[in-house]
């Protein structure tokens, strides 16, 4: 093995070698289906018969589609409200659980537990908890003399209900932050302590920069997940098993749900693919902005 050789060809070979599992997977399993869906977006395709080419008709149809606008609005609402809140909450939990509280492993497990419960079961339990008259949530609100909305029937409150369930499920995000917090260089942290820095200053100067790469990750992944959100609203809005509904006044119609409906219920796979690619472009745009902004606040290395 050549030593000290930094030829770019060697680096290329090394890079490709290490990245080979993903490269193989990408070419074999990912590229084909993605290209297929791109092709379908320019066709009229019902999943079973040969697609007929329709050019950009699917894309122009979106401009006239009320439900597309509703789905986009609902999804952006859930993202703009839900993602920052979830990140703040999970970071808060991680900071709280990072200290030497007694019984810490148990508390960590409790925070993570919601993500292990089968989602069908947990959403159905939440439907019961959110019952406007008798659900526990409203009983607690009533006890605190706060208004008790009809979470699942009032179009103004269905999305907040989804956000609430999302906050309940921050266990995964919390666990990642916990691992990141363990990375905070202890010497720098202790030096700050010695210097007399208060907890907020310690956080700003030491902790935050150290975890910023992971925070960027959480932000981007949270954004992608939220923009594609399907399962929770789908289960909340269901009146019958396996039926896809949009909830009161379509307030629970997320973009992911609309794609699903078009693909598997209306059998308009062409339109569904076009919808998916529009979301893709929106996601890329927002991510690009985030990545550009990250140069200002993300610190790599020591």
């Amino acid at each position, binding site marked *: 093995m050549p030593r000290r050789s930094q030829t770019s060809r060697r680096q290329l070979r090394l890079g490709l070698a290490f990245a080979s599992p993903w490269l193989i997977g990408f070419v074999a399993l990912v590229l084909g289906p993605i290209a297929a869906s791109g092709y379908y977006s320019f066709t009229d395709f019902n999943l079973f018969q040969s697609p007929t080419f329709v050019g950009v008709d699917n894309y122009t149809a979106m401009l006239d589609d009320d439900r597309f606008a509703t789905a986009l609005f609902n999804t952006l609402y859930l993202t703009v409200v839900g993602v920052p809140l979830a990140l703040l909450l999970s970071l808060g939990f991680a900071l709280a659980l990072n200290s030497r509280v007694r019984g810490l492993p148990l508390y960590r497990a409790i925070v993570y537990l919601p993500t292990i419960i089968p989602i069908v079961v947990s959403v159905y339990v939440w439907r019961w908890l959110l019952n406007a*008259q008798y659900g526990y949530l409203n009983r607690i609100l009533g006890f605190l003399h706060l208004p008790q909305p009809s979470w*699942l029937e009032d179009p103004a409150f269905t999305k907040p209900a989804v956000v609430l369930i999302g906050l309940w499920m921050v266990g995964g995000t919390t666990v990642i932050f916990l691992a990141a917090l363990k990375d905070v260089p202890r010497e720098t942290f202790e030096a700050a302590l010695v210097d007399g820095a208060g907890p907020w200053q310690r956080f700003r100067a030491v902790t935050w920069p150290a975890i910023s790469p992971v925070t960027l990750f959480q932000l981007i992944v949270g954004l992608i997940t939220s923009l594609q959100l399907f399962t929770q609203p789908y289960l909340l809005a269901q009146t019958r098993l396996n039926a896809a509904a949009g909830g009161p006044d379509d307030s629970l119609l997320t973009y992911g749900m609309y794609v699903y409906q078009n693909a598997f219920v209306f*059998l308009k796979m062409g339109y569904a693919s076009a919808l998916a690619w529009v979301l893709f472009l929106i996601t890329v745009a927002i991510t690009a902005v985030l990545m550009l902004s990250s140069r200002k606040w993300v610190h790599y290395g020591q």
Partner: protein
Amino acid sequence: MRRRFLGALAAGALVAALGACGGGDEASGGKTEVVFSYLWAGEEAAALEKIVADFNASQDKITVKGVSSPDFQKQLTSMSGAQGSFDISDHFGSGVGAWASKGILTPLDDFIKADGYDTKDFPAAAMSQMVYQGKTYSMPIALHTQMLLYNKKLYAEAGLAGPPKTTEEWAEQIAKLTKRGADGTITQLGYANAEINTSFTTLGFMFGGSWDDQSGAATPANPGNVAGLNFYTDNIPGKYGVEQVRKFTSGFGEYASAQNAFYTGKAATIIDGEWQPVSIKKFAPTLEWGVAPLPYPSAQPNLTGTTQVTTSTLFIPRNAKHPKEAWEFMKYLLAKDAMTKFSLALGNLPARTSLVDDPQYKALPQFDAWLGALKSANARSLASSPWAAQYSSDLALAFDDIAQQRKAPNDGLAGVAQKAKSYAP
């Protein structure tokens, strides 16, 4: 590096071995294996498996393997390949047209003709959903009808003698059966929707409306439909305030539980299907309830006995490996014996009119009311058109707007007609 590689190789070999033992194709002993994939699960699946076992025991040419697959995404993905993973499955009648028009169902006419199979025993309202462009694409295994259920105790409290015959009587009874507190808060509703889509389409039928016409076009704004929805808005949100009604209905419990609004006396009357006798026996055995034919407008006595028929159907996908054998099994399921067992276990109506008077159904309390509805001349059903799913979705939105009084019935339904122009001819 080598250790890691060997480890991966071993894992790969293990996986390959797993792949090999995943699911066989031909059953041993020269029998043809037919895969029956069905949406039912739990107790219903158990009942179905018994029938499958009976079939397998009754002959030695075909072995049927039953697979419970409760999600229809799986059905669709399987039917999209060149060779399907199942030979026979079930679906709802209203979806037959859509799938038939995509060419993924095997037409059954040749089988029917070759065997001289008699389809006259199946009611016309059911068979109409099985046919697309003159060809038969599936067969009904179970039927569902809608009747008016009423709470006998609440009726006695309100001093009412019995269920209404006309819609005018019903409106009066709803007013007497609705109780409110001093501030307008509702504590009991004379009528509540069991499931808004089915209830509203049924109301449309009750007032002589129709959701599609002979040529298969969508007719949401039919005056009968509008009249049916006006009946609801006039008598419920229009009278008691849409906010109050929503507040009350938001406190309803899960439909399939002891907290069902009808079981707990929150709704005095509902329109619902024939599975209720079994459900009530399970969740609310002490409930005093009765069932009656749906009321008709007094000016149109010809509409008496209207009901909406929906169907559970069996079909053979185009890419089935063994369509002929699947047909043999289908005939067995449709035969009187298996059909009776199946419908009794599920609490559904049999699809054969000749079974309507079968004494075995007396075991289910008041079940015969729904059976009788099958014989009605006014048994209506929604057309099974290629665009049925999208129409149903647009109707659902309009129904929500109408029930919440964001739109008047004729406005909401006209909106659906407008939307339907783009997908229904």
